[in-house]
Structure formats: structure tokens, C-alpha cells
């Protein structure tokens, strides 16, 4: 190999840099799902859709709701799970049960370092 003296140290430095996030975070606590304060299971058996769906898709659902509410004037959403219509409203439907923003919304958003700007305008109940 030509210039092995330069290439091999170069590769080592590159590998170190490339794996920086892994060895830098060695020994720190692994990510755990934050403990959320859920509404009373006696009163509410489940959310308007399944927990798995809500966990993965709530942001897409809220995005769809805001468009369909503001632009098309549809104010009610049919929940197949509950066989019932719900208002397409963050503050009137979601936060009617999940009423404590700090103990529900914020805990996950902080843990995953996302900063949604819903509450810049919408008013927490």
C-alpha cells in the first residue's frame, strides 16, 4: 500500500469520529418511555383510536383535523373503535381527557426533543 502511514491513521480518525455518538453516550442511561399520567381507566377504556395508533399517528391525525376543520368545516370525527363521533378539536376532545399538558403531552415531547407549537395559540384547558 502506498502512503500507509497516512492512510491508516486517517481511517482510524475517521472511524472514531464516525462512531462518536456511540462511545460518547456509553454508560449514560438508555432511553425509556416516559411515565405518562393517563385518564382514569374506569371512566375511559381507550382513546378514540387504539393506543398503538395514537402513539404513532396522533400528530398526523391532528394535522388532518386542523385542515379538515378550518378549511372544509368538518367538525366531527367518526371513531370506529368507539362507534361515536368526536369533535375534531385538540382542546375540546384530546385535552378533555388528557387534561394535564405537563404530565401527558410534555413528558414525551421533552424526552424525544420535539417542540410542537400547538399551545403558542391554542389554550390549555
Amino acid at each position: 500500500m502506498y502512503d500507509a502511514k497516512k492512510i491508516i491513521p486517517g481511517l482510524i480518525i475517521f472511524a472514531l469520529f464516525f462512531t462518536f455518538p456511540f462511545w460518547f453516550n456509553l454508560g449514560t442511561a438508555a432511553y425509556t418511555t416516559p411515565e405518562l399520567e393517563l385518564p382514569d381507566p374506569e371512566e375511559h377504556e381507550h382513546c378514540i383510536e387504539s393506543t398503538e395508533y395514537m402513539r404513532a399517528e396522533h400528530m398526523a391525525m391532528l394535522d388532518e383535523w386542523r385542515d379538515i376543520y378550518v378549511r372544509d368545516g368538518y367538525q366531527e370525527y367518526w371513531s370506529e373503535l368507539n362507534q361515536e363521533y368526536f369533535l375534531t378539536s385538540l382542546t375540546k376532545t384530546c385535552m378533555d381527557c388528557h387534561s394535564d399538558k405537563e404530565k401527558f403531552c410534555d413528558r414525551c415531547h421533552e424526552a424525544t426533543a420535539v417542540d410542537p407549537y400547538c399551545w403558542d395559540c391554542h389554550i390549555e384547558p
Partner: protein
Amino acid sequence: MKSSRRKFIKLAGLTALGWSVCPSLASARSNRYRKIPGALKADRWAMAIDIQKLSDEVMQKAIEACHRLHNVPDIDSRQNVKWIWVETFKTLFDDQVHAHQMEGKEKLPLLTLCNHCDNPPCVRVCPTKATFKRHDGIVLMDFHRCIGCRFCMAGCPYGSRSFNYSDPRRFLNNDELSPDYPTRSKGVVEKCEFCAHLVDQGERPACVEAAEGVLFFGDLSDPDSEVRRVLRDRYSLVRKAKLGTEPQVYYLI
């Protein structure tokens, strides 16, 4: 498999057909949403203001009801935000004023708000379609989409739009916010929306409720509606009619 030009064209035709039909089939099942059953419906909402019955008290009641419901701040400067407010006859109808007007009529205070034009210039100039005209004629703002370019403010000949130069919550009492309507954020334009959210719930606009018998609200396409009735009976004006924006707030003289 023997291929031929005829067979290829047949297949291509079928594919094109499938492509055009499938998306519309997929969207046809979107019955997951519905409008509230008791929503008020119209082809063309309009408002009429009886200027003979307008008093300071009635105007303040209408303004108070609107600005409370929609969390509109009261800022003591030129950056104030207005949805419905008081202006003199001379300012509103500057193309109708002449040198020999009845004494004092120029200074007559009148109520004014967004005219919900049938041909709205604000909608035409908005680059993000944040402002749009609904099928029932209401010119609505989608605050989520507004980028604060203020083209609409330049486009509106009635000065009906306000810009949030700073966070409006600084000027609102945060313990007394109306929970039924969001505030706005810095850098967003706002205006009257004929209480579209109330109309969709089957209620009349807040100002109309507050100024019962002075403001009339109804469907212009329905000959029996309240608005059509008062427009038939009384002489009326609209602001800057010659601009062709077709304003839908009528002043009963």
C-alpha cells in the same frame, strides 16, 4: 408470450384507467368526518347594519362580544388588532362625501368589519392560500398557514386586516382567555371571520347576537332571509362599490 402492438396498447389503456379510477375510489371512503348536524347553511352569507339604530352602547357591546370571544388584544398604539371597530362615515364612505353634507353626518360613528367580499382581493394575493373563500361566501383565515407577508393587508381596500407585530398574549389577560378560540402568534395576520366556527355549530355571529335588531345576518341567496328582507325595505350602501370587490356588509341608511 407473443407480444403485439395491439396488446400493448390495450394494456396501456387499462393501466391508465386504473390509475385514474383508483385514487378517486380511495378518497370516496372518506366518510370519517361530518359537519355538525345543526350547522347553519347558506349559499352566500351577508350582513346588514342598521345605521339609524347604531348607538355607542350597541357598538361597544358588539365589539366587546367579538373581541372577548376571539381573544383579540387591545393594544394602545398603531399596532392595535381589530376585528370589528368604529370609524366615521367620512372614513368609511369617502367616495360618498361632498362639501355640502348634512351638518355632523361626516363624523357619524359607524361599525365596520371585514366585508367578506364576493370577489376578495386578499384571497387573490395570498401566496399560501391561508386566506380563502368558503362555499358559503365567508372569507376565512387559516392562521396555521399564514406566513405574515401582509400582501392581504395591502390588497384589502377596507383596512379590515391586522398584523400581530408581537405575541398578542402579552396584551391579553391570560387568566381570562376565552377557551373556545385560540389566540394568534407573532407574525400572523387576522381579521373578522363572520364567526365561521359558530355558524358551523348552528349559531349566529357573536356581534349579531350582542346587537340584536341592529345587525342582521343571513343568506343572500334566500329571498325570505332576514338580510334580504331588510335590504328590500330600506335603501342601503356598500363600501367602495366601484372597486368591484362586491362587499357583503350592507349599511341601511
